[in-house]
């Protein structure tokens, strides 16, 4: 009992000290601490398979500016379309990250659109739901790799097969969340709209869709996380570009510094999207709940 009190007594100054630092300050300090730990670990290990932060930063810098690729190549790799008017050059790092980013974004948009429409239909029409419920269940439980392999067999080993595979993996998840949202639509509020003779478009935009926003945001959030991960996995399967491909390549070559450089570059892009797009949108959509 006394020991516990004593321990708490010693911890409290530190705890209140942290509580007084602003959120970004704490985050910066904790990131710096992580890099320090990494440095210490790398020094202790002293191995090419455990590079120091500086070594990784150096690798990243070189990969960022080696100008090995052109913008034309980005378009061909990500969209399968041949263009030749762009002259800018790109390093390996931005090239592969941009290619993966474009694929993930397209797959994400397709999955959100198709999944939302499907989910809302399932939620609004019980008959359709009864008919298609088992399909959705099947889709949810189908291993992601099976879908990818089947898409590659049917559509060929190209960027669109990959995009379709990622989208198909994600659609059932979106649909299930949106189905829940659509069945939670308040008939009482819809009645208000009809009693006051709101035009259809106003009904949709100001009465119906706002009730779906929380569900839309939830599926977008989980969706983004999922899409990022499976895009990389699918790129491992026989692609010659994208972050998944370079991760595999550097694994085989034993270049852990490059591997980490790509991984960290990719993480930074994802975190920037979270901070600049997803979170502000979510905050706006749920403002009224505070």
């Amino acid at each position: 009992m006394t020991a516990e009190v004593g321990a708490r007594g010693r911890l409290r100054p530190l705890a209140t000290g942290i509580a007084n630092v602003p959120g970004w300050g704490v985050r910066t300090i904790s990131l710096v601490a992580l890099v320090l730990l990494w440095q210490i670990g790398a020094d202790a290990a002293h191995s090419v398979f455990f590079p120091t932060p500086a070594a990784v930063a150096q690798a990243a810098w070189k990969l960022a500016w080696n100008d090995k690729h052109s913008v034309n190549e980005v378009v061909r790799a990500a969209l399968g379309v041949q263009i030749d008017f762009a002259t800018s050059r790109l390093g390996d790092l931005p090239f592969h990250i941009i290619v993966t980013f474009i694929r993930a974004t397209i797959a994400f948009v397709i999955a959100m659109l198709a999944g939302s429409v499907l989910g809302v239909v399932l939620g609004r029409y019980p008959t359709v739901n009864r008919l298609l419920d088992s399909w959705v269940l099947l889709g949810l439980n189908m291993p992601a790799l099976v879908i990818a392999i089947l898409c590659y067999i049917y559509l060929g080993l190209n960027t669109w097969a990959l995009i379709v595979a990622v989208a198909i993996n994600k659609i059932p998840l979106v649909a299930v969340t949106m189905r829940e949202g659509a069945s939670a639509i308040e008939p009482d509020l819809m009645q208000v709209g009809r009693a006051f003779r709101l035009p259809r478009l106003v009904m949709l935009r100001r009465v119906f869709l706002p009730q779906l926003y929380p569900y839309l945001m939830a599926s977008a959030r989980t969706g983004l996380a999922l899409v990022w991960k499976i895009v990389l996995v699918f790129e491992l399967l026989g692609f010659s570009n994208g972050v998944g491909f370079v991760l595999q390549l550097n694994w085989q070559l034993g270049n852990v510094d490059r591997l980490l450089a790509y991984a960290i570059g990719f993480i930074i892009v994802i975190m920037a999207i979270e901070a600049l797009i997803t979170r502000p949108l979510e905050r706006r959509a749920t403002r009224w709940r505070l």
Partner: protein
Amino acid sequence: MNALEVEIQRKVFQSPAGDEFIAAENLRFSVPKGQFACIVGPSGSGKTTLLHIVSGLDTKFAGSVTVAGLPAAEAQIGYMFQSPRLMPWLNVIDNVRLVATDAAKAAGKPEQLLERMGLGAFLDSFPNRLSGGMQRRVALARAFVNDPPLLLLDEPFISLDEPVAQRLRSLLLDLWQQHGATIVFVTHDLREAVYLGDRILFMSPSPGRVVLDYPVGLGRPRTYDEASVEEVRHRLLREHPAILAGLEAQPSNDGSADPARAQLRSA
């Protein structure tokens, strides 16, 4: 021309099992322009069904309903429901603007009405920040914003503390007189009906129809607990015991026993 003509021959609800429930039969009445008509009836007498039909929310019935000469579903109306039914994601002013016509918005009606309701300082607040009484005031402003030829109110002050309900009733009367609106007000509280109405229509248990059309015949302004209101109420109970049986046994508006309502007091 009457503000409202109701000629419902029959309104039937069908359960999924195929059972039929006759909610209303030979339900006929009309309300002249500018009148405050109260509709009183026991639970399940089809009062809400009647308002759904009059508002055009329910079009599956035999008969006809015209509002200011138009079929019910085409007429502009104001509606106040049993609960405020505000859009939780819209702030106070946007809730009223949502239903306001362009003309009403251009004339600044939403702001004026909310100001008049004492909500001027809460235009940017979201409904979940407001007390129950304040939410009803927003709903009241929303019902009046387009100056509709007909206003339907479905037990709008139920489950409020009596002082709050009373303040809202007098606010409603002020707005009614100022706007020259025609009102159909559903309640099962006889005293409320006598206090508010020019006339009271009593409905039978289902299938609902009008069994008594009673002119209140009191001058205005009235006060809620004045002797004459009480007198009319007693006379009605005395003269029509059969019609009013069951009404007075219903819970009235003073829900003071419910602790959840304590927070609404501040409205």
